[in-house]
């Protein structure tokens, strides 16, 4: 609204549980991310990275503080309105791939298009193109059980970008992959960020992977400890 930020967190806290069992996972996070950025989120286990990603992904809402996504205050939206935000603007990549098993790669990639009510005639070529973009032409009819971990994650990336989202959120996308596969995945993400201008926010433990991003945000005990830009090439 007043600035060009795509994502704007202001004093965001998140508390799980109540009373003595209350656990404050975020203690006041301020974060602005502009269109086209590639941000890596780092930090020790339990520092609040996933909690923050869930809020960014409109899967959860802050306990206090404000989250503006494209100028819309997400905290005031209903569950269904947030689902529609995700459907139209967000793509997700998970550590555990989360593909539908016993379902072909093509059908997995089609899934978000089905929820967008695309006709089969537009759905099929679009899903094929997305699979081609992640280098899986020829694997359309294989089920996750027939694919390697790296291939499965690439199907998941195809599923996330097939709708041409504004933001792609990836929580430890390389956590289950060896370093060669991880680098392939990072190269894919980098290319989507560079060529299609998709804003990417990615959680990772590994500095090697964070090095692909233009900006690195460090979490510590529910607060942002450090936020700096990489100087690549």
């Amino acid at each position, binding site marked *: 609204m007043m600035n060009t930020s795509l994502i704007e967190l202001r004093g965001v806290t998140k508390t799980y549980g109540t009373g003595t069992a209350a656990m404050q996972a975020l203690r006041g996070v301020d974060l602005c991310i502009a269109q086209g950025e590639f941000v890596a989120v780092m930090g020790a286990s339990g520092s609040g990275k996933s909690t923050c990603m869930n809020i960014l992904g409109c*899967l*959860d809402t802050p306990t206090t503080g404000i989250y503006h996504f494209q100028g819309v205050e997400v905290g005031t939206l209903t569950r269904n309105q947030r689902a529609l935000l*995700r459907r139209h603007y*967000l793509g*997700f990549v998970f550590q555990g791939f989360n593909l539908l098993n016993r*379902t072909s790669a093509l059908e997995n990639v089609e899934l978000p298009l*089905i*929820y967008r009510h695309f006709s089969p005639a537009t759905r099929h070529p679009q899903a094929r193109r997305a699979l081609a973009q992640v280098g899986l032409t020829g694997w359309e009819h294989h089920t996750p059980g027939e694919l390697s971990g790296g291939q499965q994650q690439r199907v998941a990336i195809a599923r996330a970008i097939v709708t041409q989202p504004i933001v792609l959120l990836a929580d430890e996308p390389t956590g289950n992959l060896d370093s060669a596969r991880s680098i392939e995945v990072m190269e894919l993400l980098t290319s989507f960020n560079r060529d299609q201008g998709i804003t990417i926010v990615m959680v990772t433990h590994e500095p090697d992977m964070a090095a692909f991003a233009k900006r690195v945000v460090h979490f510590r005990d529910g607060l942002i400890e450090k936020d700096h830009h990489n100087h690549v090439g």
Partner: protein
Amino acid sequence: MLGNALLLALRELRRNVMRSFLTMLGIIIGVGAVIILVTLGNGATQQVTEQIASLGSNLLMVTPGKRMGPGQSSAAPSFKLADAEAIARETSSLKTVAPVSSRGVTAIYANENWSTSVTGSTEEYFTVGNRHIKKGRMFTASDARLGTAVCVIGETVRAKLFDRQGPIGQHIRLNKLSCEVIGLLESKGQSTMGTDQDDLIIVPLRTFQRRIAGNEDVSMIQVSVKDGYSTERVKQEIGRLLRTRRHLSANEDDNFNVMDMKEIANMLSGTTRMMTGLLGAVAAVSLLVGGIGIMNIMLVSVTERTREIGTRLAIGALEREVLLQFLVEAVVLSSFGGIIGIVFALVASVGLTGIMKVPFVFNMPIVLIAFLFSAAVGVIFGYFPARKAARLDPIEALRYE
């Protein structure tokens, strides 16, 4: 939106064909049972009605007791021979009147014995029942009057007691009575109701009353009306006559029944209908059990697919879309089970009616009702699991192991 839900549901069911089939099994059996029972019941009813109607519309049966409902009657004083004689004497346009009493008995000849029933009646019995003598003779008026120890037997009794040798002239024992076989009936085969019409022994009524029953009762009077005369008029005449003979005052109900064959057919089909209804209720219960089976599997499926539901929600599926998908899955399962059940039942009914020699009566309303019922079972029992799926928290669902 419904098209989408159907697409997603069908993909889901295809993913787990074996389980889908097992889930449907309860519905298949429930629907199958309903349709088989109703079809067989209808066939039997139709057959009974047709066969009884073909016996002739000029036969009346007079029985003691008040009519209460299908197949039920209350106790009332039984008839005597004099009642039958009075009907024969004082009613116009009758062909014959036969008093009938019968009871179960063990017939013994040499080393053979056979449980059957013995009927006491007059020679008129053979006319009314359209029975003919194959060998020997039937009893005469003097046998009836004197109560001689003679009997006419059916083919089944002959076969059970007498091996190859001719029965005529032999003596068989019926309880304490030793009586001479004087005639063998021509075989008539199975009746509509599945009873063997050749499994009987007939003795003169007087012999039956004095030597077997030990009383003067007549349990039924069969009346055959002359062709071309109104059975309705005769029924009224017999009614009036019996009311006087049984000293009923004007405000008392009849304590006897005069039924023609149409009424008997109605009564019997009423009984079959009641049986069909009862069995149908049992089948409906099994359909409910099938529904509970679907609910159970759907709940298991929701739990198993928690991560998948989380993924769908994260991708942007609305609560109502997830609900609809699972609901449609349940309905597709149950109604597809219904269709399989219907097809299976119709095939089985054709086979069973063939074996049981009853007509196959296709009952479209029942097929439609069974289908709608099975679809409804899917909606009712699928709703709770579907709602459970739709209400999942996406974050927790995504984390679910």
